[in-house]
C-alpha cells in the first residue's frame, strides 16, 4: 500500500469526476423529479402511490422473483460449469471459455428471436418433449415467465461463469484436497471452503446477472409481452408511450435500489460464510 494521498487522488479523480459529471449528476437530477411535490418541496408520495397500486405490486414482485431465480440458477449452473472448465487442460480450457463467451458477441435482439424458434409450439423443445412422451400436446412456453427466465438465463449466464472461473483459478490449489483429507464431504467442501474463497467472483457475477435481469428490456418485451410485464417494460411504457417522466424516474429509482440491495445481500451472504469458517 502506498500512502501518498495527493498521488492517489490525482490518479483516481479524473475517472470519478468524469463519471460524476456526464453520468451521475444528470441521472440524479432526473431521479429527483420523483421526489418533488407539485407544490414545491419534497415528498415520497409518488412512491407510496406506486406501491399502493396492485398491478405495480404484481409487476414488482414478479421482477424480483424472476431476477432472483435467474441469479440463483446462474450461480448453481455457473459453479458446475466453472468447476468443469478449470479442471480441463490449458488448451481445452481456452477453447471452452471461448465458447462460453461466444453468445455475448451476438446481439441480444437476435438471440431473443432465436428463442421464439426454439420454444415455439413446433420448436425443438416441444418436438423433443413429444418424442420422449413427456407431453402429448405442444406446451405453451412462449410468452410466459418461463420464456423470460430462459431468455435471461442464456443472456447472463456467461457473465457468471467467467466471474467464477477467475475466482476458482485464484483459489489455492490444495484447498479442496486438504479439506477432503480432513474428512469433509463434497457439500461441506463447497459450503465451507469453495464458497468463502470464491465469494468475490460470486458477488461480482451475481450483481451483474441480477442487475442485468432487472434492466433487460428486449427479452421480457419479446418473450413476455404485456401478458407478463416486468418493471423495465413498465418503465419503457411510461417514457415512450405516456411521456410520464416522473413515473419513469420512480420505477428507475426502485430498480437502482433493488440492484444495490442485491449487491449488499450477496456480500453479506458471502461474508457470513467467511465468519463461520474462521470460527470453525
Amino acid at each position, binding site marked *: *500500500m*502506498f*500512502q501518498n*494521498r495527493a498521488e*492517489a*487522488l490525482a*490518479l*483516481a479523480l*479524473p*475517472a*470519478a469526476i*468524469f*463519471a460524476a459529471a*456526464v*453520468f*451521475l449528476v*444528470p*441521472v440524479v*437530477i*432526473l431521479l429527483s423529479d420523483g421526489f418533488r411535490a407539485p407544490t414545491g418541496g419534497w415528498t415520497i408520495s409518488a412512491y407510496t402511490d406506486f406501491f399502493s397500486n396492485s398491478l405495480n405490486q404484481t409487476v414488482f414482485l414478479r421482477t424480483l422473483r424472476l431476477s432472483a431465480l435467474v441469479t440463483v440458477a446462474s450461480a448453481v449452473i455457473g459453479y*458446475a*460449469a466453472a*468447476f*468443469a472448465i478449470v479442471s*480441463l487442460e490449458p488448451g481445452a*480450457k481456452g477453447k*471452452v471459455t*471461448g*465458447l*462460453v*463467451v*461466444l*453468445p*455475448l*458477441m*451476438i*446481439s441480444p*435482439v437476435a438471440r431473443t*428471436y*432465436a428463442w*421464439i424458434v426454439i420454444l415455439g409450439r413446433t*420448436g425443438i423443445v416441444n418436438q423433443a418433449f413429444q418424442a420422449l412422451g413427456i407431453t402429448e400436446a405442444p406446451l405453451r412456453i412462449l410468452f410466459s415467465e418461463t420464456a423470460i427466465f430462459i431468455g435471461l*438465463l*442464456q443472456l447472463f449466464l456467461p457473465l457468471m*461463469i*467467467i466471474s467464477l*472461473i*477467475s475466482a476458482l483459478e*485464484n483459489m489455492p490449489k490444495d484447498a479442496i484436497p486438504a479439506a477432503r483429507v480432513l474428512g469433509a464431504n463434497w457439500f461441506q467442501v463447497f459450503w465451507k471452503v469453495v464458497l468463502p474463497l470464491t465469494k468475490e467472483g460470486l458477488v*461480482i457475477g451475481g450483481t*451483474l446477472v441480477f*442487475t442485468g435481469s432487472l434492466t433487460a*428490456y*428486449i427479452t421480457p418485451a419479446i418473450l413476455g409481452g404485456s401478458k407478463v410485464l416486468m418493471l423495465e417494460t413498465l418503465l419503457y411504457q411510461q417514457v415512450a408511450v405516456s411521456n410520464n*417522466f416522473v413515473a*419513469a*424516474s420512480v420505477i*428507475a429509482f426502485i430498480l437502482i435500489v433493488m*440492484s*444495490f440491495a442485491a449487491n449488499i445481500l450477496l456480500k453479506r451472504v458471502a461474508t457470513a460464510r467467511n465468519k463461520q469458517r474462521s470460527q470453525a
Partner: protein
Amino acid sequence: MTARSLFIPITLLLVIAFLIGPFLIIVAASFSAGETLAFPPQGFSLRWIAKVFTVESFRASFGMSLFLAIGGTAAALVLGIPASYALSRYKLPGAEIVRTIVSAPIIVPGIIVGLALLRYIVVPFQVGITLALFLAHTALVLPYAVRVVSASLDNLRSDIEEAAVLLGSSRLGAFFRVVMPNIRGGIMSAFILGFVTSFNQVPVSLFLSGPGVRTLPVDMIAYMEIVFDPSVAALSSLLAFLSIGIVFIAERFLGFSRYV
C-alpha cells in the same frame, strides 16, 4: 468411468448447448433461403448476407458504432487504469465513494441514462451528437474497465513494483515497466468486454442519436420495427464473426483467456 469423470463432459455439453443453441440458429438462418427464422433452416442461400451489404444506412452506422466502441473503450481505459491503480495500491480517502461513482453506470437502466443525458447535458450545453454519444459510451464502459483492471491488479503481487521503486525506479517508471506488462491481459479483456458492451448498446444510443448520426444496433432495431427477416440474423452473425475474429487475434497475441 466414475460419476465424477462423467460430470465434467456432461455439464459442459449441456451448458454449452444451452448457450450456443440460439447462436447456431441465428447463424443457420443467415444462410437460409426462407423468409423467416426456422430450424432446421429452409434451404441454403446467400441472399440475406448479400442484403446486409446493400442496405446503405448500415454502412454509416457501422462506422459510427466502431468509432464509439473503440474510442469510447480506449477513453474509458485511459481514465480507468489510473483509477484502478489508485484503488488497488493506495490508501485512497473515500475509496468506496470513488468505486461506487465509477461503477454506477452499470446499475441505472439505460433508458433513464439516455433521457437524463439528453435533458441535462446535451440540451443545456448544446453538445454535438457525436460527442454526446462518445461521452455516454465512455461512461458506460468505465465500470467494466475499472472492474476488470482492478481484478488483475489485485492478482498481481505489489511487492514487485515496490522493489522496483526501492531499486531507484520512479513510481511512473515502475508502473510502465513492471506493472503494465503484467496486466496487459487484463487490459485486453477489459477492452473486449467494453467493446462488446458499447457495440451492443441500445437504449442510451436511442435517445442520444440524432439527425445524421446513428449507431448500428439502433439502426437494426429501427429496421426490424416492422419486419424481422433473416437479414437481421445475417447482420448479427457477421458482427459476431467480426468480434470472434478480434478475440481470436487477441488470444493469439496476448493469451487473453489466461487473464479473464
